[in-house]
């Protein structure tokens, strides 16, 4: 079986499972087939637009979105758009302090959210957040310090709501990442959700 010959059939999902597996293994080693597949995939997908498309029942949309929300209900939506560097919501507390990361995002209610990490000369750090809604019932925000190449270390819990200042536990080594996630009340020993915010020191 010449695996190069299977690209069109793979793009059309016309391979039997064992052939598809063999082709996928081949694909990981064949740049030429990857390029050809990208092209043929686009053509095959054009066929999707060649069908009559009756409107799906509205319950389908609701069902997909409800299931998606239930799967990641402990994550609070944060970003309307990528980090936008704008004016700082917090003045650099002291001249010796370094601001290592800040982010501005519009929260769901369109309030501007500013996240600032202020790193002191002794490598202790403070997190300032404005415009962060209160953590959902049964949840808490948890800050993390993640030293390069090491596991995340819990650095404090907070409940949000208006302006929040959190003094992070311990110190923040060079190149460590500071992050915030939503966790169950009481906190977790390791992050279980996608960070709302992260910055490298």
């Amino acid at each position, binding site marked *: 079986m010449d695996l190069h010959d299977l690209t069109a059939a793979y793009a059309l999902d*016309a391979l039997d499972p064992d052939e598809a597996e063999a082709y996928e293994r081949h694909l990981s080693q064949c740049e030429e087939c*990857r390029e050809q597949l990208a092209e043929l995939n686009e053509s095959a997908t054009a*066929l999707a637009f060649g069908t009559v498309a009756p409107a799906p029942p509205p319950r389908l949309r609701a069902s997909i979105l409800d299931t998606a929300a239930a799967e990641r209900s402990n994550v609070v939506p944060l970003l309307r758009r990528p980090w936008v560097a704008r004016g700082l919501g917090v003045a650099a507390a002291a001249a010796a302090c370094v601001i290592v990361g800040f982010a501005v995002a519009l929260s769901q209610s369109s309030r501007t959210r500013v996240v600032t990490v202020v790193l002191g000369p002794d490598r202790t750090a403070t997190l300032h957040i404005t415009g962060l809604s209160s953590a959902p019932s049964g949840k808490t925000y948890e800050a993390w310090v993640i030293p390069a190449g090491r596991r995340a270390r819990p650095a404090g819990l907070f409940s949000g709501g208006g302006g929040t200042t959190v003094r992070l536990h311990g110190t923040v080594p060079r190149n460590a990442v500071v992050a915030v996630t939503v966790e169950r009340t009481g906190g977790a020993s390791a992050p279980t959700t996608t960070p709302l915010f992260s910055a490298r020191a």
Partner: protein
Amino acid sequence: MDRQLAHLSDEALVALAARSEQSALAELYDRYGRTAYGLALRVVRDKTLAEDAVQDAFLTIWRTASRFVPERGKASTWILTLVHRRAVDTVRREQRRRAESLDQAAEPSVEGVEEDAWLRLQRERVQAALRRLPDTQREALELAYYGGFSQTELAERLGQPLGTIKSRMFTGLSRLREQLGEPGTEKSWTSTT
């Protein structure tokens, strides 16, 4: 309906979905849900099974959005490929169309379907491109993509060597690509709505 993310590209929406932004998933559904459902319905020929295939595909998007690599292809291709794969898996598992004759993979009637203007233009464009293919190539593409037949099944049912089926699929897809033109021309299509 809330369409505040309507200005974002598909790829940007996938990136937001990877950050658990539910409204991004909703926007992707609003853009491709109808095409996805039409495709799934064409392949599985059962409304409930079609809904299941679309739901599975969109939840896969939600769960694996962070692994999507824009350099490897368009987000819409990724989404509709997921939908198609689910639909084909379903139809093969259900053995639904095994008893049916090949010509039943043909286009269902437009009658009674209220079509979106832009989707109708897209459909006519793709169908016109298909009509310009030689019959044997069009047949191979339609039976594989809409009928869910594997190349081995097609070779058996059409009484042709496997090599012939492979080359019809390859040449058919390549010509379809030429007929439909480069992605850049799609922009002028969207402006016709």
